[in-house]
């Protein structure tokens, strides 16, 4: 583990009765990156993150967050973290400004509450009670409360669930500006485009373990080498997956030519196709040869 490591997880296990929520998960998050944990509901993302945050105890494995075992994290350690939980609808009767000011009192050198409220775009709502905020505004407040202590490491658990597209985009800008200030961000999401837009690296989690870990571009690139070729032969739709589409098309031309090959299509899988196949929800039959 190098000094640039913010989060280090080795062979993490957590069982709930017979259910293996986390089953040998491993990952490393470096300082200064946005690291995304991607996976379907129930893949073990939230359990993993809550172990890192100190909310849950692991069954076994090795965990270090900012150099500390979360099970023994003290106030000093917590003051270096920012945690934005999946959902909360607490403190409804307080105003935005009151809450941000209040949470600022917990930290050694907090951000200026007024500037922070402006940074998350809630200046106009500063005097509004929390119960009157929209879902997106509420989430911005959650983030404000998570970063008021100038965290070195920020955990965000599915931050944009239920956002409209515009709110998501401005939320992403907010996260990028935090990264640019040097905050390390660990983000769980089940939105692929969110990971693609934000993450420097992403881990795809399925059944409690990491099934792929790379940059979003490399994740897509790796599978994009597998290309699907479709055509029609003997009045039947055919398809094949190959790393060498040119050779396949040449072979088809030789067999069916000369002239046009009926119904010819050469398709590279999108990141979404890759992701879906990784989490096992894919129509992998799409990637195998099937008589349609």
């Amino acid at each position, binding site marked *: 583990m190098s000094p640039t490591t913010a989060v280090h997880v080795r062979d993490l296990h957590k069982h709930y009765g017979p259910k293996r929520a986390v089953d040998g998960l491993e990952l490393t998050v470096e300082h200064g990156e946005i690291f995304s944990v991607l996976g379907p509901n129930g893949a073990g993302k939230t359990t993993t993150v809550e172990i890192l945050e100190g909310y849950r105890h692991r069954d076994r494995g090795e965990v270090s967050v900012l150099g500390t075992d979360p099970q023994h994290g003290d106030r000093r350690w917590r003051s270096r973290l920012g945690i934005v939980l999946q959902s909360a609808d607490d403190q409804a009767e307080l105003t935005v400004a009151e809450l941000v000011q209040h949470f600022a009192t917990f930290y050694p050198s907090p951000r200026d509450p007024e500037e922070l409220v402006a940074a998350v775009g809630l200046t106009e709502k500063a005097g509004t009670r929390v119960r009157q905020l929209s879902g997106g505004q509420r989430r911005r407040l959650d983030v404000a409360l998570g970063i008021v202590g100038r965290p070195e490491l920020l955990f965000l658990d599915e931050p944009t669930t239920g956002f409209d597209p515009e709110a998501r985009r401005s939320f992403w800008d907010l996260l990028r500006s935090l990264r640019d200030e040097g905050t390390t961000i660990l983000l769980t999401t089940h939105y692929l485009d969110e990971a693609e837009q934000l993450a*420097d690296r992403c881990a795809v989690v399925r059944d409690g373990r990491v099934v792929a870990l790379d940059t979003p571009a490399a994740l897509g690139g790796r599978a994009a080498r597998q290309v699907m070729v479709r055509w029609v032969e003997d009045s039947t739709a055919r398809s094949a997956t190959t790393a060498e589409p040119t050779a396949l098309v040449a072979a088809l031309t030789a067999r069916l030519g000369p002239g046009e090959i009926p119904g010819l299509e050469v398709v590279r899988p999108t990141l979404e196709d890759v992701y879906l196949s990784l989490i096992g929800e894919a129509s992998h039959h799409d990637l195998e040869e099937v008589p349609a």
Partner: protein
Amino acid sequence: MSTTTPPTEHTAGHTAGHTDGHTAGHTDAHTAPTTEPTVRRAPQGTAAALPSLARVAWARTVLELRQFFRERDAVVFIFAYPLIMLAIFATVFGQGGATVGPEPGIPFAQYFLPGMVATGVMLSSFQNLALSIAVERDEGGLKRLRGTPMPPAAYFLGKIGSVLLTSAIQMVLLIGLGSLAFGIDLPTTADKWLTFAWVFVLGTAAGAVCGVAFSSVPRSGRSASAVVTPIVLVLQFISGVFFIFNDLPTWMQRVAEIFPLKWLAQGMRSVFLPEEAEAFEVSGSWQHEATAAVLVAYLVVGLVLGVRTFRWQRRDDG
């Protein structure tokens, strides 16, 4: 297909993140020399001292007070309830100079004031905390707080501080209402007010710790008031708050003796009723020692249970 990339592999995006980190590290290295150039800047937060427990506890107290007085349900059913009940009882039963007990008797309003004072103490401490903590736990507020460097003790000190302040204000209003609107004679000796002080403080403390402990009983925030309110109501009926304690069946008096409200009400009667009323007590005595013993017992049991069972998260959440 499911190969895990070794985490040490430096990918494009990853390297970009690093560069940022190094730049920041170097910037800091100029101002504060460090032997490890790869270590990222020490955030300013690490150097500064954590805020003291007293400061955070006071901030929590202020926030709790704000929250309490903005919650209409809490203000009506916890804060104003004993005032309303005193006004109703004193008006309805106090007509025509009706009295309680042997001649010359105690005016009705005066007899009921201690009961309402005891009820106020229980509502402001026990009912208030049992409900508010159950709701905060259910809504995720406690979990959020647990994820911050707030010292856990500050949370409880904030609850206790706000309970003490709200119930103190409630007592002033309640006793003021009794005195000004219903002409109840207030005690004039320091001795009586000293009794009031210890019964009030012990009762509030016991009610508060029991409220913290009891907040784990309701299965959700929504069901909390359905679980807590009937208990409080039954105790009011059997503990000599709404009815004259002497008039209750003996078995009901025995049951009431198990719970603190009966003792709280009796302690308050010893403050607000004249000396000759002591003979009218079931036991013929104010029983101050027993009152103190029961309240302390609830304080200790509530504290032990509360410490052992307190959860920052919902039962179904880890």
